[in-house]
């Protein structure tokens, strides 16, 4: 195990106070993303910096207010440096009701006011129709609508497709349910976004999610989707926590998650290093996405004759749950034979619940 670095020298006395403001009492010790905070503080306080460049800054203590300030400022920097938004844009915030999207909604609306981004913000939520899981979180989102004053739109699988996830699982079991949910959710969000006429969609995916996705794509053989993992806005996370969908006890993703947890314990910055690696991967441009046409059945974007959701729906409606699952099956079978792992269709197939590519 690593040795800890020497304690940093301080400009003021004993280290009892918040390291930033030196006034208030510290409320937090060792937040997970120490390295980012350290780097950020370095930028802020070049001279009077009480930090040495090692990441194992166990003695760093911040008070709550400074913590908020640091966190919000960090997100603002990400937005500004990457030019994520333009004034006047309508932005949909993917809101699950979970911790990440709640934080996202709050912070975005705060920063929008504070820094005058000039954005029109909306909350967009997807109701998959999973009793006991989604009901609770939707209540949270409805509260967010009131608390932050952001208009909310809920799109439900029932409305869009005529099926809830509960009904789907009842029909097809627990094996490929994540495939259905993933495909449907993506379309649902897109359709919701279209209904709201938003220009961009912001999600609360955090560094850990992205790192996990990068890793899983390598393990699965999916290099092409590494490209569009990084086209989403991402926000750094502070507490590692996640609510698993009740339908996905999945040993495979479990391994990856355990591994990332262990990794983070040994070297916290590894999560960000994974993302950096993903960004730097030398992927030939030929492995990018295929041509985009439209689905004959519903008009949604599709690289095949029918979009994936329609294929799956057809299967459900006809009582053929395997339609669209597996290779060289279903209506698009001729096209599917020429599918390379690069095609979006196939990469969606192999996606599991909770992956970035909804």
């Amino acid at each position, binding site marked *: 195990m690593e*040795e800890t670095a020497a304690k940093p020298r301080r400009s003021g006395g004993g280290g009892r106070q918040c390291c930033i403001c030196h006034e208030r009492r510290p409320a937090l010790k060792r937040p997970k993303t120490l390295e980012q905070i350290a780097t950020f503080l370095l930028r802020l306080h070049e001279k009077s910096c009480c930090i040495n460049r090692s990441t194992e800054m166990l003695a760093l203590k911040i008070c709550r207010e400074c913590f908020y300030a640091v966190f919000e400022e960090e997100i603002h920097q990400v937005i500004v440096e990457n030019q994520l938004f333009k004034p006047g844009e309508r932005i949909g915030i993917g809101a699950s009701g979970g911790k990440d999207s709640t934080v996202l909604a709050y912070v975005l609306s705060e920063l929008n006011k504070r820094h005058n981004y000039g954005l029109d913000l909306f909350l967009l939520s997807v109701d998959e129709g999973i009793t006991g899981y989604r009901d609770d979180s939707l209540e949270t989102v409805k509260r967010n609508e009131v608390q932050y004053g952001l208009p909310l739109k809920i799109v439900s699988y029932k409305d869009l497709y005529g099926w809830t996830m509960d009904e789907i699982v009842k029909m097809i079991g627990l094996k*490929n349910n994540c495939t259905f949910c993933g495909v449907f959710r993506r379309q649902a969000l897109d359709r919701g976004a279209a209904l709201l006429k938003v220009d961009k969609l912001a999600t609360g995916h955090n560094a850990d999610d992205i790192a996990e996705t990068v890793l899983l794509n390598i*393990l699965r053989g999916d290099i092409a989707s590494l490209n569009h993992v990084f086209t989403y806005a991402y926000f750094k996370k502070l507490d590692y926590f996640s609510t698993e969908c009740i339908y996905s006890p999945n*040993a495979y993703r479990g391994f990856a998650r355990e*591994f990332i947890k*262990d*990794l983070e314990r040994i070297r916290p910055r590894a999560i960000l290093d*994974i993302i950096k*690696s993903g960004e730097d991967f030398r992927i030939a441009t030929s492995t990018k996405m295929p041509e985009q046409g439209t689905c004959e059945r519903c008009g949604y974007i599709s690289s095949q004759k029918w979009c994936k959701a329609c294929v799956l729906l057809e299967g459900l409606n006809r009582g053929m749950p395997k339609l669209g699952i597996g290779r060289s099956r279903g209506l698009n079978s001729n096209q599917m034979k020429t599918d390379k792992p690069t095609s979006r269709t196939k990469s969606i197939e192999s996606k599991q619940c909770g992956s970035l590519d909804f």
Partner: protein
Amino acid sequence: MACNGSACQSGCYKKGDELAAPEEGGAAAASNSNSNSSSNGSGNNLCVKCKVKEPFTVAGGGGGEDGRFCAECFRSNLFGKFRHAVTSNAMIGPTDNVLVAFSGGPASRVALQFVHELQYKAQKNFDASRDRSLPVFGVGVAFVDESAAHLPSSDKAMDQAIEDVKSLVLELSPPAKELHHFPIESICSGDSSDQREKLKEVLNAVTDATGKEDFLVHLRMLALQKIASENGYTRVVLGSCTSRIACHVISATVKGRGYSLPADIQYVDARWEAPVVLPLHDCLAQELNMLCHLDGLKTIELPYEPQSTINSLISSFVALLQEENPSRESTIVRTAGKLTPFAFNRIPEINDTNVPLATRRRQKRSSLKLNGSISSESFCPMCYSPLIQSKVQALDTPEASKTNSYIFGSSCCSSCRFQILPQDPLCMEHFYSHLPPPLVARASSGNAHDIRSLREHIQDYLLLDSDNEQ
């Protein structure tokens, strides 16, 4: 995740082995897809390749390979993968002098064995041929002794291990092979006690356990290159197998080395004076273990304590995944194989007329999609990984304070800067002053490689007599 036939997307071992088997082992691959047995060599089962003998089993289960091949076919399948890698990447030519890096472990043992068998056959052909036109390549064995880095003082177990290595190499003749027992501290400057001192100093300066382990790997490569250049070897053979490469893919990703990753995982790495080749690239650790077991190939265990590092975490992780799905390691390597390699990931073209035309032709044919850009890479002096040009740091401090150690540190990649280099400037000075000369020389020589790679790119356009084929 349970494999369930056609619905399974994971590319489970049935398909995985198809992809792993080389063209020459095509019979095995074809019969794989026909056989649907997952049983363990009971009764009716015949070897999937020769369909004559019974498959061998390993007590307690050997995983994917168990109960499919008979011993003969298993061995020839494995050797087939090795030979395919060697020929299609022009790894070993008749005029080459090959240095096999031997660690004592099963993979490098098999590498040594297979290279020996290749050489033995070549020697037999040479003896039998009338015109003796094709010379036989030479083989030497390098054993880099890292005991100074791991053990406090001289160790009986270590001494015994070294004796075992010596006798092992003696047995691998004819043709006879020279053994180079190289204590790793020898790459440092000074006399032997100076060297040990310097090595200890420099290792102690690295506080991160993973960084220390990786640093030792870089020193090991330096040692191998030194042996090669001092003894006229033209190739370095490593026993790196699919499993090891899979771990490297994950560890490089996790250390933020995604850009340089493809450089390390190809069949050929010609960044070095003596290009490094990986003939066991397509063999799984499990297969290599099994072969050692089957053929009684002696391996030598070294008395080092295992360290708890990111690398060991990753090994366990990959082993766990492999257990759950026997094609996982291959999938990882295949995925990473889709990343664009570098120009140095192939054997440099030979224009020496002494080298047979057939060999030169074979080289030209080896189709590896490379990054065609002529712009040269710059390299991290510590780990020799290619650096992203746009991220090569500008030195923004005043000229006067740019000490050599500062310059060295700034030209390293961010991963080495984080996990290897000491943070404190004074510690860094101390560290730098004890670094082995070859490492230090790299920082200044910088572009020696670039000129070579540049020449390579314009090779086809140069008018040389030797290129006129009749």
